[in-house]
């Protein structure tokens, strides 16, 4: 074998080994994530979580998010669009995985806004103006208040309410559940209990369509 052929063969073998290892690893991860999700079913849905859509919708998307996470902000309208395309069939529950340092304060402020019936407006406003209250990946609740005030949240009241022990309990429950379900990145999606393993818009749509098709077949 001449040198060029040897070099090309070895390079190709290395590339193939790498690709094979990636596929194998991701496959194992997918199985492990599915097992973790199945084992921790009770961690997936809690009654306290804010939800949108019909309670008996065929497809239930549980999303672990961090209000300071840019990708969560980018995916939020995408999920809303899918829900608009299937108005009665998709339900969304929001859970928290405040991985950014300081995000838990913003989550508590968001929950205080929820007590005033302004939850979804507040969440959307926070996503839309992330750059004004997240500085160098550090969420700052003091800068988030003006954003919440703009959608009609009584911020003086919310500042007090966010300190309530039931909000603290609720947030720590979500963090514990995220851990149990092996959510390490946000947004983390579960569609009818199936985790989204390979991340992306297309993959999420595919998983949702899969569940829509599976549940439609069951219903007939």
């Amino acid at each position, binding site marked *: 074998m001449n*040198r*060029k052929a*040897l*070099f090309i063969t*070895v*390079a190709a073998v*290395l590339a193939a*080994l*790498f690709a094979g*290892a*990636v596929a194998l*690893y*991701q496959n194992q991860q997918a199985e492990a994530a599915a097992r973790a999700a199945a084992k921790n079913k009770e961690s997936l849905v809690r009654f306290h979580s804010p939800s949108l859509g019909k309670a008996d919708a065929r497809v239930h998307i549980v999303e672990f998010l961090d209000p300071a996470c840019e990708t969560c902000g980018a995916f939020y309208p995408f999920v809303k669009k899918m829900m608009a395309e299937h108005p009665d069939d998709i339900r969304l529950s929001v859970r928290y995985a405040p991985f950014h340092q300081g995000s838990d304060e913003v989550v508590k402020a968001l929950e205080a806004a929820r007590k005033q019936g302004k939850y979804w407006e507040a969440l959307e406003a926070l996503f839309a103006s992330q750059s004004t209250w997240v500085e160098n990946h550090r969420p700052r609740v003091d800068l988030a208040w003006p954003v919440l005030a703009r959608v009609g949240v009584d911020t003086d009241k919310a500042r007090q309410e966010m300190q309530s022990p039931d909000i603290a309990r609720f947030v720590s429950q979500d963090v514990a559940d995220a851990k149990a379900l092996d959510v*390490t990145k946000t947004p983390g999606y579960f569609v009818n209990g199936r985790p989204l393993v390979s991340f992306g818009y297309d993959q999420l749509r595919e998983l949702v369509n899969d569940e829509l098709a599976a549940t439609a077949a069951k219903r007939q």
Partner: protein
Amino acid sequence: MTHQPPARDSHPTGSTGAPTDPTLWGLVFAAWLVAAVSSLGALFLGEVMGFAPCVLCWYQRIFMFPLVFVLAVGLFPLDIKVVRYAFPLAATGWLIAAYHVLLVAGIIPESATPCTQGVPCGQVQVAWFGFVTIPLLSAVSFAVINLILLSITLRNRP
């Protein structure tokens, strides 16, 4: 080397002026192979398995990744001068890896680390068989590459 020696007389070269000793090509190829496997391994650990590289890991990557390309270019046609270009990368990379190994082992105190945020370099993310850590693998790879480069220099001496 400040001047071009009359190479043709002092050691075997072919008609194109390239050395004909087949072992030399094999040695450069071996160094390339070590660099390529190490680079792919680093990418696998970082990008696929999701171990975030700490600051020192990044510096080791900075010195390992270019070796794959520099050494590959030196193979076709075989250019022994590639050792001159590869050695500064391999030697510096080894120094950083050695520092990192000492840090993980606790011989250099954590307070002396250049890491201020992100993943602490003293943290052990992987320890296969109880002692094979990622910085150790890196240090061994850099050491092997340095030894191969050294042996090429010695072999090619007039």
